[in-house]
């Protein structure tokens, strides 16, 4: 008979090992899935995880894409992880990402075709503010009225999607676009374009921002009072209350920070890789970042690695679509499976698994 025994402290060893086990389990389950879809499982797994990095023909094209895709995922996931640690569930990062992109792009487009060097910094600021303001809606509602932030932040994703549809066909539409929806392309607007910092690496400002966010989050969580309060609230809410942690401040900080980072990610995406505001420029990074945050154990370094891995599945997925005709949705499901395996294996870090014979169990009960 298997019994679970709660550990007094989550095991550090298992917390580090379970993400790796989960990835392996997902590869096995994914292989079975691909086999059921009529593809060679080993070839599919290799195409997703190996070829984007090391294939002679595709590697040079795919490697830069790794950073392009990982940048927004890491940036958003770092913000989300702060809240998740403290039990504040912002799951509307997708909406904050969209609003950040809209606000930032609007500032840039307002100055078209100026070549002032301050345009891009102004856009970055506006992007962060846009995301921050959008996340403040659930934040303020939670603080003032106790409204559930999960549902409000999620509802606001759909509102943001409608705003995006509206501005890409109206307010921000390219006046020279011959009636096509979508804004001006930032590629034709050098002062506002988020280009590669080092040519051909995919290393744009968003990736730099993501790396800075990782470092800041690490320092915040390990060296700063606010970070300590975040951790305390997550691990022992009662103790946190007694020691005078202000829940209001924490909620506004966590939601605000995650919103601002998601907004930044949106701005960097729209002014760089995607290039323009269009109805479907958002690729669901806001939702995938939730998986990244958990896969990275809500730890900044872990998120960095998890973001790179998740970016790899995106690129590898595209490659597998191209090479093997694997449906794009299979990758989405693959990512969902990863989250499940991870949560399932979490039991190992919080509990000790004991095998007991019924007799021994009887003995224990006495």
């Amino acid at each position, binding site marked *: 008979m298997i019994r*679970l025994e*709660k550990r007094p402290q989550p095991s550090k060893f298992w917390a580090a090992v379970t993400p790796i086990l989960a990835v392996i389990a997902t590869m096995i389950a994914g292989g079975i899935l691909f086999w059921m879809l009529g593809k060679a499982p080993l070839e599919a797994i290799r195409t997703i995880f190996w070829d984007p990095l090391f294939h002679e023909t595709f590697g040079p094209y795919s490697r830069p894409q790794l950073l392009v895709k990982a940048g927004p995922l890491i940036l958003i996931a770092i913000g989300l992880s702060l809240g*998740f640690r403290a039990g504040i*569930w912002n*799951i509307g990062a997708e909406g904050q990402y969209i609003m950040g992109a809209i606000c930032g792009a609007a500032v840039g487009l307002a100055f078209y075709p100026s070549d002032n060097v301050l345009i891009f910094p102004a856009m970055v600021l506006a992007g962060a503010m846009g995301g921050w303001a959008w996340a403040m809606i659930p934040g303020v*509602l939670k603080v003032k*009225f*106790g*409204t*559930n932030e*999960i*549902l*409000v932040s*999620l*509802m*606001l*994703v*759909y*509102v943001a999607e*409608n*705003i995006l*549809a*509206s501005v890409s066909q109206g307010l921000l539409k390219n006046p020279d676009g011959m009636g096509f929806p979508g804004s001006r392309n930032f590629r034709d607007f050098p002062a506002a374009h988020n280009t590669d910092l080092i040519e051909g690496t995919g290393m744009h400002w968003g990736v730099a921002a993501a790396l800075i966010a990782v470092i800041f989050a690490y320092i915040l969580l390990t060296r700063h009072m606010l970070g300590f309060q975040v951790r305390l609230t997550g691990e022992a809410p009662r103790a946190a209350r007694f020691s005078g942690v202000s829940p209001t401040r924490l909620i506004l900080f966590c939601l605000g920070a995650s919103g601002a980072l998601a907004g930044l990610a949106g701005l960097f995406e729209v002014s760089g890789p995607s290039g323009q505001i269009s109805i479907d420029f958002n690729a669901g990074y806001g*939702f*995938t970042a*939730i*998986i990244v945050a*958990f896969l990275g154990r809500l730890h900044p370094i872990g998120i960095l690695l998890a973001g790179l891995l998740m970016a790899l599945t995106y690129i590898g997925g595209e490659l597998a679509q191209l090479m093997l005709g694997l*449906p*794009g*949705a*299979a*990758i*989405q*499901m*693959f*990512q*969902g*499976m990863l*989250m*499940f395996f991870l*949560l*399932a294996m*979490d*039991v190992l870090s*919080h*509990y000790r698994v004991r095998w007991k014979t019924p007799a021994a169990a009887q003995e224990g*009960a006495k």
Partner: protein
Amino acid sequence: MDLGQINPILLLASLMVAATPILLAAIGEAVVEKSGVLNLGVEGMMITGAVVGFAIGVNTGAPSIGFVAAAFAGAALSMLFGVLVLYLKSNQVATGLGLTLFGLGLSALIGKPFEGIKAPTMAKYEVPLLSDIPALGPILFRHDPMVYVSLIIVALTWYVLARTRAGLILRGVGENHDAAHALGYKVIRVRLMAIAFGGACAGLGGAYISLVRVPQWVEGMTAGAGWIALAIVVFASWRPWRVLLGAYLFGGISVLQLNLQAAGVAIPVEVLAMSPYLITILVLVVISLRGNHGAPGSLGREFHATH
């Protein structure tokens, strides 16, 4: 703009159709939450129900078989959640989110070959005599059978929860799982059954969207209906009849905004399209002003029996 072309009788009749998916999902989730478990995967189970119901409905030509299959698919998916949360003690919020992300991927994968196909039509059932009543007849008694099934499920849920021993045990488990466990009730088993019921209802609700309301398969077609169902459970203070009220109010809003769009009112389409979500937020705020009365005591808390 021509508001005159909005027919109030048709509007009210389509309200019931628009409300049914959310009603089904919300009544299921109400039972799950009554047992003390918060399943945020409603959206994922709904969309899986939508695609499975559609696929089976199209292949067999019988929507009713599609609905049965959708209920099983929703329940099967919810068992994944149940095992993770109840046996492996995973975080309920995170697992629910994972279920939604997984369901969205799974449904997109299954649904690819079914895009652009029309669903077999489900015959309307006209209640004898009653459907001939002027005004009331067309509004209430000329719907497809699933509308009535959803109402029966609500009534049964109310009856079981409020009037039977099984319902009492379920509520007890939800209010205080430690006390229920001490009394010898099987907390895990009760919750597992509640989760399965919730999954089946969400699956039915999803299938109603793809088989009756739209009726087509479109990727991501539930468009937040599962999340709105979660909001309605809060709005309803976890009471079955109020779930019915909430779902119909919400159905009314979404039908009204569609009618206003069709009538060409001078409000931008996007504003109308976002109105259901904004109103949901507004309702959540109003409800939280009143305080969350009626939330089950053990809602969302982890249960670990030491003996």
